[in-house]
């Protein structure tokens, strides 16, 4: 049954991460901020509503949120929580993981284009470019970890992270952590790549793509996004909290603590810096790829 702990925690707790991020940002701004459980309330409300569809749209627009959520729900089966292995682990599952997120993005983009709106087209066109540049960074970073751990599954990679590993190869792990952090910020529409709270459609990327969705569709999108943030944060948390005691609940608690740290970190990044100009974003992503490549060179040496 232990194998089911990571996906179950993801299902239940993923909306909480956004609450933590928002609370951190509010603290930095000197506000009280919305409740930590706000996303749960939003989801419950949206699931009770009807929906409005543009006359331009087709089945693609309705399929987008469902395919996206299904891909995210499948992806959580592959992601370990620190020392706790995922229920499904096999050599090469990291590629499948990356491509499941790719499938989610593909349909979100198509749903955006289905509305025929120039704003949503704009967001879609940015999203596909940025994710194309983030992909090599993600897969190279994971390759560096895989070579260190001599394993091609996410669970195997995470199991090999330990205080000893940080002691002997700390630089590599730190470089990969930095690369994955940039990928996380870019893929989850956070500052400095995208501003989830902006009020100007022209400058948005991810948020503008889902402008036309409503009701249960929007709930699926929000929940899918929360799951995506959770799985990528879980990978980071597994890296920065090298707790591998062998006791299930201790390890789980440690990695959950790591997730909290990641969420607070995202909040701090968002509070302390402005969004990059869109033309600068590719440079940031290529830099993340370079960090991952550097980590690889160090591993191979």
């Amino acid at each position, binding site marked *: 049954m232990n194998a089911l702990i990571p996906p179950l925690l993801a299902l239940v707790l993923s909306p909480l991460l956004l609450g933590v991020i928002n609370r951190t940002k509010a603290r930095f701004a000197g506000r009280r901020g919305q409740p930590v459980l706000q996303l749960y309330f939003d989801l419950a409300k949206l699931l009770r509503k009807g929906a409005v569809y543009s006359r331009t749209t087709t089945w693609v627009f309705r399929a987008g949120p469902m395919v996206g959520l299904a891909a995210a729900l499948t992806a959580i089966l*592959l992601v370990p929580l620190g020392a706790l292995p995922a229920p499904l682990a096999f050599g090469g599952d990291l590629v499948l993981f990356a491509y499941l997120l790719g499938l989610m993005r593909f349909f979100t983009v198509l749903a955006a*284009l289905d509305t025929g709106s120039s704003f949503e087209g*704009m967001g*879609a066109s940015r999203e596909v*470019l940025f994710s194309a540049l983030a992909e090599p960074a993600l897969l190279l970073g994971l390759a560096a970890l895989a070579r260190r751990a001599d394993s091609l599954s996410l669970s195997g990679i995470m199991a090999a992270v330990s205080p000893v590993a940080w002691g002997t190869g700390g630089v590599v792990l730190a470089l990969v952590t930095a690369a994955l952090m940039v990928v996380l910020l870019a893929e989850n529409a956070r500052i400095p790549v995208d501003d989830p709270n902006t009020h100007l459609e022209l400058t948005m990327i991810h948020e503008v793509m889902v402008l036309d969705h409503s009701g249960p569709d929007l709930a699926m999108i929000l929940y899918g996004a929360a799951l995506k943030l959770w799985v990528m944060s879980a990978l980071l948390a597994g890296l920065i909290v090298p707790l591998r005691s062998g006791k299930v609940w201790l390890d789980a608690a440690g990695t959950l603590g790591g997730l909290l740290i990641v969420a607070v970190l995202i909040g701090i990044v968002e509070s302390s810096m402005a969004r990059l100009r869109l033309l600068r974003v590719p440079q940031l992503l290529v830099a993340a790829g370079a960090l991952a490549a550097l980590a690889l060179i160090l591993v191979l040496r």
Partner: protein
Amino acid sequence: MTLFLYAVGILVLSGLVATRWPRGGVAGAIVGGAVGLFPALHVLLTGATESLWCAWQVPYGSFAVQLDPLSAFFLIPVFGLPAVAAMYGSEYLAAWRGKKPLGAAWCFYNLLTASMALVVVARNGVLFLVAWEVMALTSFFLVTFEDEQETVRAAGWTYLVASHLGTAFLLVMFILLGRETGSLDFDKLAVSSPNVVFLLALIGFGTKAGFMPLHVWLPDAHPAAPSHVSAVMSGVMIKMGIYGILRILTLIGPPPAWWGGTLIGIGLVSGVLGILFAVAQSDLKRLLAYSSVENIGIITLGLGVGLLGIHYGVPVVATLGFAGALLHVINHALFKGLLFFGAGAVLHGTHTRNLEQLGGLLKRMPWTGLLFALGAVAICALPPLNGFIGEFLIYLGAYRGALAMDTAATTELLSVIAGLALIGGLAAVSFTKAFGVAFLGEPRSEPAAHAREAGLLMQLAMLLLAAGCVLVGLLAPAVVRALAPALKIVTGLPAATVENQLANGLGPLGSVVLVTSLFLVVLAALVLLRRSLLAGRTIGQSVTWDCGYAQPTVRMQYSASSFAQPVTGLFAGLLRTRRKLVPPEGLFPRQASLETTTPDAARETIYQPAFGSVGRGLGRWRWLQHGNLHLYILYIALTLLVLLIWRLG
């Protein structure tokens, strides 16, 4: 073997019949293809090898053919796709009935299929080159089907010149191989300089396959041809180049490391540049043609990984690399055929291939749209379809190698991983663009608004290929296991090792299929959930939200070139996209326009200057040829005289 010869016979005979009775050609293509599939599947599944050798009057020639698992593997797309495409083409070409000689077109079509089948089984250099040449010529006549158009004629000439330059390298290669023994039968060839042969094969076969920068004919010729021919050319014919390289590799002995490295380099350049140019195109069929260059790049990456595996003696890497490459050959035939059929249906229904004129077709052509979307998902290598499986095997080979090998090879393998990731991301850009701009949103022109759905035969052809994409995706372990006999030939490993390594690699593949099936179950559950949630609630209809703007119009939609702009801007140095901008002027601007085109960089920077200077250089000798018959006879007499003196002296 007998069945195979029957199949070729049916194709050739029905091709001749077609000149009188076009429908006979269609029937022959379908029947011949279906008959040919039996021996191919039989040999591939049993691993048996059948040969036939007959003497032939031609110097150095012999009618030596052999059906081994590698040939049988390539025969599956060679017979399969043209048969399906013939079904599609019979309806597609109907619009030209009475205006064009359809009989001749079907004759060339069936001869093309027959010649490709012969290329794959030929075991004699002369026979191979003859089949290769027939393949080039028949496809040239098919490309120039609409020869009243200037662009089509130009594309045809480029293709003819390019394929003959490529063949010239193959000719030299075979002469080198047969020089010592005096026989061009494949089993008697002697390899004295494998490196030279490898390079000649790379250029000669690479021209047909469309390696960058030898691809220059491809983005012109594939869009110019009728769509079912484009599908056959992109889906099967360019794979003959891949087959040629594989066959030569089996003949010329153990590969040094740099062969693998070279193939990986070529694969990266073709893959990344191919898909970048695809992103920048606004002609739907040209976009698909550039994406073929990209997919050839992916196949080549797999070959490179496999060769490194052989060189360093890591069987698992060799097996996975070649398995991925071979599977991608089949996969690309399936989804590129499907996408070209879809593009042809769009062209058929709207009379334009320009994405800027399309839009909203999903409502008017629901089936074509659905199947095109499926093809787009498959070609972007997204699970749960077949494209993912092929690329997954190459990824896995590269990752396994990066874990096991020493530093030099690891760098190359890691560049494969990074390259595949980037190619995958950019493929998503170009196919969200292709499907999104053509099929979604509102129609951008009058013809697109009145588009008609393709006919039943065309839909059926697309459905067959789409079913193939789904089946290969979901039955991946069984399909990959069937590759074992072909892999044994390519890798040169003992059968037991290959099967062991495949079983080893199939474990993850089984898990992949498990996960993707779970995905489908979850998706089905979500569909039911959404339906039950929305049951009985108010479902509103409205216009698209455009930030409070009261009258959104079609012209405000994002267009194909605006969607691609972030990419073309970022890679401007490589793509050299040209912009023609008429900016809005004055206080009340009336007309403004922006037009972007991305011509082929290799053509503009390499070939046009090169051919231009050759033309100018040879132009100086033009005085030799002034059309005066007496002088020509004098030339002949002089030549004979010189030869006579040379012979006697």
